[in-house]
């Protein structure tokens, strides 16, 4: 699959969504587990491309601001490395037409 094209497509689509973004992440990964993880499921399963694996450090970078709060990453991470909760009250994604 053409990863770049999909990432661009996601980015354009995310621009249509409203967020009330807080300044604290609601998604925390355990990078100790991530460094050992072969599957890197989070990096392709997320519909908002929130997880990016840093080429150099191999750490998982979490762009929590884009999260759609679906829960797919939480359930599919093979190492259960994601501490997943909802954004604080009133924060996060705002779907108006869905």
């Amino acid at each position, binding site marked *: 699959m053409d990863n770049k094209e999909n990432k661009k497509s996601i980015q354009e689509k995310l621009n*249509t969504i409203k967020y009330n973004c807080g300044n604290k992440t609601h998604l925390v990964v355990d990078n100790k587990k991530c460094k050992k993880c072969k599957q890197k499921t989070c990096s392709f*399963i997320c519909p908002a491309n929130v997880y990016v694996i840093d080429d150099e450090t191999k750490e998982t970078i979490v762009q929590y601001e884009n999260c759609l709060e*679906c829960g797919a990453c*939480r*359930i*599919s991470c093979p190492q259960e490395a994601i501490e997943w*909760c909802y954004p*604080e009250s009133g924060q996060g994604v705002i779907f*108006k037409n869905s």
Partner: protein
Amino acid sequence: MSNDFNTDVIVVGAGPAGISAAIEIAKNGRKVVLLERAQYPGSKNVYGGAVYHKALEFVFKDQVQELPYERIINEHTYSFLNEDSSFEMTYKNANSKNAYAIKRFNLEHWMIEQAKKQGVYYSPNTLVKKLIENNGSVIGVETEFEQYFAPVVILADGVNSLLAKKLGLRENFKSKNFILSAKEVIKLNKKIIEQRFNLKEDLTNGVNKQYFGSDFGKLKGIKNLFMMSYLYTFKDTISIGVGVNLEDLAKTKLNINEVLDAVKQHPDIAPLIEDGQLIEYSAHLIPEGGFNNLPKLYANGVMLVGDAAGFVNSVHFEGTNFALVSGKLAGETALIALDDNDFRESKLSVYKEKLEESFILKDLYAYRNVIELLHSRANSLSVYYPNKIKEFFEIVTGVSCTPKAKEFRGFLIQFIKDRKISELFKDIYAFSKCALDVLLGK
């Protein structure tokens, strides 16, 4: 109400399940607090596009007449998609008023207005962080700012139900029991929608399309993908989306957005959304575990309703009806428990009895093997039969100047030779077992 409690019942989550539960309690004169993490009702929630008349009427009675819906969905099509062709069946009933297309933002706003009229105390911007327990009983909830106490707490916090998980009512979430769906809402001129879908201008009729098949575009050649796509017409928007089993996504390393892009480019679908403007992208999970993977539905002082309980028939894209009805049944149970001042698990088992009497557990039971069977035959459904249907219709409709009888014979021989014959028997077994289960029910 005992002095230690702030209210009779606390409901967590203002989707259809929670709102329905809260209404049932308030309208019978008990105090209920409905807590929702979102700022605006419905703004965290995503679905395909239709709510069902019967379930709404069950909760809202005559008020349903005032539902601010966009269209009445009275035409349903089922299509099998191929690379460049499709086979479609349509059922249309001009007089049907079974389903309404309405956006969740508007649906939940309307439902909350009804709830407030009945005396529900609605608190938005309120994230419940954990449940408070005492002596093995749930006795309240903790939000960011305060604690609320009540002898019964109803969890209507949706598919991810973190609270049910923390309480140990739901076991580990397995990816094979969830569908991830991505969806787009596309704006088009109302007239254009009516032309493209052959709808009468002076009526508010609308269409729901369901698509099977995955062997096209970028997805061509990918085997064993269990996926379903859908389209709903609204007044001046179209909702188009696709759902794929989460485990299949992980195995194939596909991203749901690229699956959606492939669906949108299919020659059968592209013209329907052509020149439309994307106004919102969204994604959400659907519980797919069904009857065989239900969580514990109640415990001391607590009940699970709607998606939190896994009540969805994902074959038919039905969920709001299960949510509305299970919410009401939990509400009725809470009222009985309040009257008898007994909130133990043994008392709340009334909820289970009510679920068993209703269509909820009957339907979930009848469909208990269907998803798994369909999933096990994903390749037949998504790739093999759509291709065979194409070959068949190429013969029926193609004017190839060879005798048709010869072509049909060739088709049949190929049908048997193409795959191991055992595959055919597996399909026959799976599909007839599905049909039998559903027919026999409970």
